């Protein structure tokens, strides 16, 4: 504090005080200059020390050298690369240099990936030197001796929290008029700068090339070089092109490497160039400007598949569609169709073909309707996934009733062909086409529960992309489902391989009723879980009404009054089931969850499975536990199979327990937006899905195949890092 009289005195004599200040200042500057002290070239700030490094001890005309800005950081604190990643900002430098001395831009050595929970920053820990090229022009002269090099430096230093800092650094060097005979160099500073110059990204050698292709998820970066690096990391220079935190799975090639990059969800437009730094395990880093190539140069099948390209997904969907024909829920339908084919094998060829196409059309249109409904509901903000229909008790009731009625017909209570449609010859052809169409529709309806386990990935991919992609994939799925019958229609020669029509057909038809009724039992079980036991009464009453209607059809086939009565009974059945669901049904997720856990508790000793919530997942990981999440639903048969046969197996169960992994069960029997979102984050839209989230929150979850084996589960557990290290702090703490 300046005492008041003195202050007044100073105010009275401003000239004197200014003079005094100038003298003091000049003395200080002279002292520092004569000592050539670099004291001002270093500043200590919170969590770091920052220094200006200028290796030459003299400055002279025509000289070029590399200066450096050196940050020494406390452990776990970091400063940032030129693209800081998801948060943070790079350091800045603003030079004040004598005339004739110019500084180039600050150069950034290759950074490290610094994960922070779900985010990813790019920067440096411990120490970093940013090299800066300096040029002394030929007209530099020693008039102002010594030369003062100063810079205003700003930075953001972060660990868990961020602290901005700034400092004015300056140092002096004697100015010479010509290069000295033996220039003197600060060797320590020079070697320190050189160490980080070695980490600067280099231009790609002329013989090498970098290209990229686009995929629905992002990009495949393709580096061709004369070596085969095992891994690589890409640091994008543009901040809104690549999703920073996404893992970059590498695919080594004989002469290079491919990296799968995930695009920024909000990317604006399509980049024509990917600019960034590619760092190889050898430490070599290349500055690349990869150009877009349409020919992805796909050297292997595995990468495009892992990329989940549209073509691969469509192919997968097509193959899956063919497989669906063999599923227990679809095969009976196909079988009905096959019978029709045998019956019609005397018909002319073009009629057969037309039937095949109508059947295909039935499948296509019903798939399109389902996708359209799904997309519309999604656009309206509902969190839905594949199999969402099974979360609706009314849909379940109608499905169960449809299959029950079909089962009655197959078992011989009545004839579908005779009683439901006219036996008149003129209508036969029309009936045939309508029959083909609705057989297609029926195939889709009953195929839905079977699609989830096998088509999970393809459908998840389709639903997470543009409507066009969704429709393409579902169309491929539909064509796959239709193709076996379509082929039979086109090659009637193959149809002749089928046995001749006869009494065996009737027996087989009745036998097929058995799997149909089994499916009904399953649907009723699911319905009970979703809608409750009270609503079950209504559904069973509806079954009774269906049986009565079936009796009318079978007893008086083709007569008008019984058919009308039967139709009334049918409507009564539908109304009964819908009404009971709405009045008696009590869909409560809690109740369902407890039912499911009751069921599972029968086999697992004290159930280790906790209900899934995002908070429970985050909490377990925060406490250093890896988490195994079983995404399941009671309407998902393959989920139950996996749980009973694999997860509940004594050895698997023990291993799960011993591994210290937290077990969460995400029950999707009823709608749950949290679970839908968690599935979406895994790139899936249906169950079953099994995911292992490592304890390290930055590590990506591992998704297991939809069809589990004990080996798959045990291997996945084995591949986890040791749980006991959880007490250690995470290694790179940003």
């Amino acid at each position, binding site marked *: 504090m300046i005492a008041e009289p003195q202050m007044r005195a100073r105010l009275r004599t401003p000239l004197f005080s200014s003079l005094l200040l100038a003298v003091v200042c000049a003395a200080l500057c002279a002292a520092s200059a004569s000592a050539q002290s670099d004291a001002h070239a270093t500043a200590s700030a919170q969590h770091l020390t920052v220094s200006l490094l200028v290796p030459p001890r003299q400055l002279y005309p025509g000289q070029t050298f590399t200066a450096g800005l050196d940050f020494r950081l406390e452990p776990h604190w970091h400063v940032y690369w030129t693209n800081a990643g998801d948060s943070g900002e790079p350091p800045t430098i603003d030079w004040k240099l004598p005339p004739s001395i110019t500084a180039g831009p600050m150069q950034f050595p290759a950074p490290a990936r610094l994960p922070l929970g779900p985010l990813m920053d790019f920067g440096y820990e411990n120490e970093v030197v940013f090299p800066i090229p300096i040029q002394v022009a030929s007209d530099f002269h020693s008039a102002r001796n010594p030369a003062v090099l100063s810079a205003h430096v700003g930075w953001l230093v972060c660990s868990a929290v961020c602290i901005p800092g700034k400092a004015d650094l300056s140092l002096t060097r004697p100015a010479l008029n010509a290069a000295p005979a033996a220039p003197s160099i600060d060797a320590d500073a020079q070697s320190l700068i050189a160490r980080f110059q070695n980490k600067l990204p280099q231009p790609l050698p002329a013989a090498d090339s970098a290209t990229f292709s686009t995929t629905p998820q992002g990009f495949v970066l393709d580096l061709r070089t004369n070596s085969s690096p095992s891994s690589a990391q890409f640091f994008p220079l543009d901040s809104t092109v690549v999703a920073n935190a996404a893992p970059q799975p590498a695919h080594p090639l004989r002469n290079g490497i491919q990296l799968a990059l995930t695009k920024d969800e909000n990317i604006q437009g399509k980049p024509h160039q990917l600019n960034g730094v590619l760092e190889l395990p050898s430490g070599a880093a290349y500055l690349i400007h990869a150009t877009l190539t349409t020919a992805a140069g796909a050297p292997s099948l595995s990468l495009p598949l892992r990329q989940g390209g549209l073509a691969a997904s469509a192919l997968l969907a097509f193959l899956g569609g063919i497989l669906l024909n063999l599923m227990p829920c679809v095969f009976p339908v196909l079988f009905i169709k096959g019978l029709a084919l045998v019956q019609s094998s005397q018909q002319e060829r073009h009629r057969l073909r037309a039937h095949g196409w109508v059947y295909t059309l039935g499948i296509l249109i019903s798939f399109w309707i389902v996708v359209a409904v799904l997309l519309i509901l999604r656009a309206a903000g509902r969190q839905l996934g594949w199999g969402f229909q099974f979360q609706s008790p009314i849909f379940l009731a109608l499905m169960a009733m449809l299959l029950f009625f079909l089962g009655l017909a197959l078992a011989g209570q009545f004839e579908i062909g005779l009683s439901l449609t006219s036996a008149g010859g003129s209508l036969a052809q029309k009936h045939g086409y309508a029959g083909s169409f609705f057989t297609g529709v029926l195939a889709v309806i009953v195929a839905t529960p079977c699609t989830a386990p096998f088509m999970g990935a393809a459908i998840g991919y389709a639903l997470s992309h543009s409507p066009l992609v969704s429709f393409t994939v579902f169309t491929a799925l539909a064509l796959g489902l239709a193709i076996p019958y379509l082929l039979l229609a086109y090659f009637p020669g193959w149809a002749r391989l089928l046995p001749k029509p006869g009494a065996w057909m009737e027996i087989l038809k009745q036998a097929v009723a058995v799997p149909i009724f089994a499916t009904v039992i399953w649907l009723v079980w699911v319905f009970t879980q979703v809608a409750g036991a009270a609503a079950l009464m209504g559904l069973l009453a509806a079954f009774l009404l269906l049986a009565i209607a079936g009796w009318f059809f079978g007893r008086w086939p083709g007569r008008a009054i019984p058919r009308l009565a039967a139709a009334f009974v049918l409507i009564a059945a539908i109304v009964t089931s819908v009404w009971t669901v709405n009045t008696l049904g009590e869909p409560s997720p809690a109740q369902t969850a407890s039912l499911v856990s009751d069921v599972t508790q029968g086999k697992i000793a004290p159930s280790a499975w906790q209900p899934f919530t995002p908070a429970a997942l985050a909490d377990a990981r925060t406490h250093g536990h890896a988490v195994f999440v079983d995404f399941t639903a009671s309407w998902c048969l393959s989920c139950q199979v996996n749980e009973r046969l694999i997860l509940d197996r004594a050895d698997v169960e023990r291993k799960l327990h011993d591994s210290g992994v937290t077990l969460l069960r995400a029950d999707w029997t009823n709608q749950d937006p949290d679970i839908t979102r968690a599935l979406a984050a895994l790139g899936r839209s249906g169950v079953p899905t099994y995911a292992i989230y490592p304890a390290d929150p930055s590590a990506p979850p591992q998704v297991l*195949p939809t069809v589990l084996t004990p080996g798959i589960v045990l291997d996945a557990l084995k591949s986890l890092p040791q749980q006991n290290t959880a007490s250690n702090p995470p290694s790179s703490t940003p």
Partner: protein
Amino acid sequence: MTHPRRTLPVLAAVLACTLAAFAVRVGTQAPNFTGTDTHGQTHTLSQYHGQYVVLEWTNNGCPFTRKHYESGNMQALQKKWTSRGVIWLTILSSAPGQQGYMTASDENAYMAREHAAPTAAILDPTGAIGHLYDAKTTPDMVVIDPNGKVIYEGAIDDHPTTDPADIPHSKNYVDAALSEAMDGQPIAVAYTRSYGCSVKYAGAE
């Protein structure tokens, strides 16, 4: 039946290995959420259907956030737009024990001291809303139109610094997006990289 059944799951599993990020995409529907504010009031995004909604991620210990509060810039923006019927929800996604985590009463005291004027400040210590919107930094701004569509996401302005002196010559993207949207203009800048401190989610230390 068995051979393709065996191979397909393998292919499917390979395909499933890609991890699709679930981020809010500009131009798509804003995901609905429910949160509790500092007065115990519940807010659901869908209840504000028909109104513009601004989401502002905050952390009062973050120097980037403080740049906008200590200069009065954020409060001015809040007052300007809430007076025109915009719903302004400040969201605190810092986990307990992390920088920026606030109890309801602390946050109320802070807002009173700073004369902050959002519609409400929502406490999100589990980070659920933050993760839902993939909020990366404080500040991180989201503008939602009356139809519930995200029309802007990203930085508050074009000067990613902690220096309040930059504010007068910064282009404020939130201000621009709201003005353009209300004038029926297309949004010139709909997505930017947000700048600031990382959101202090649980497990992110």
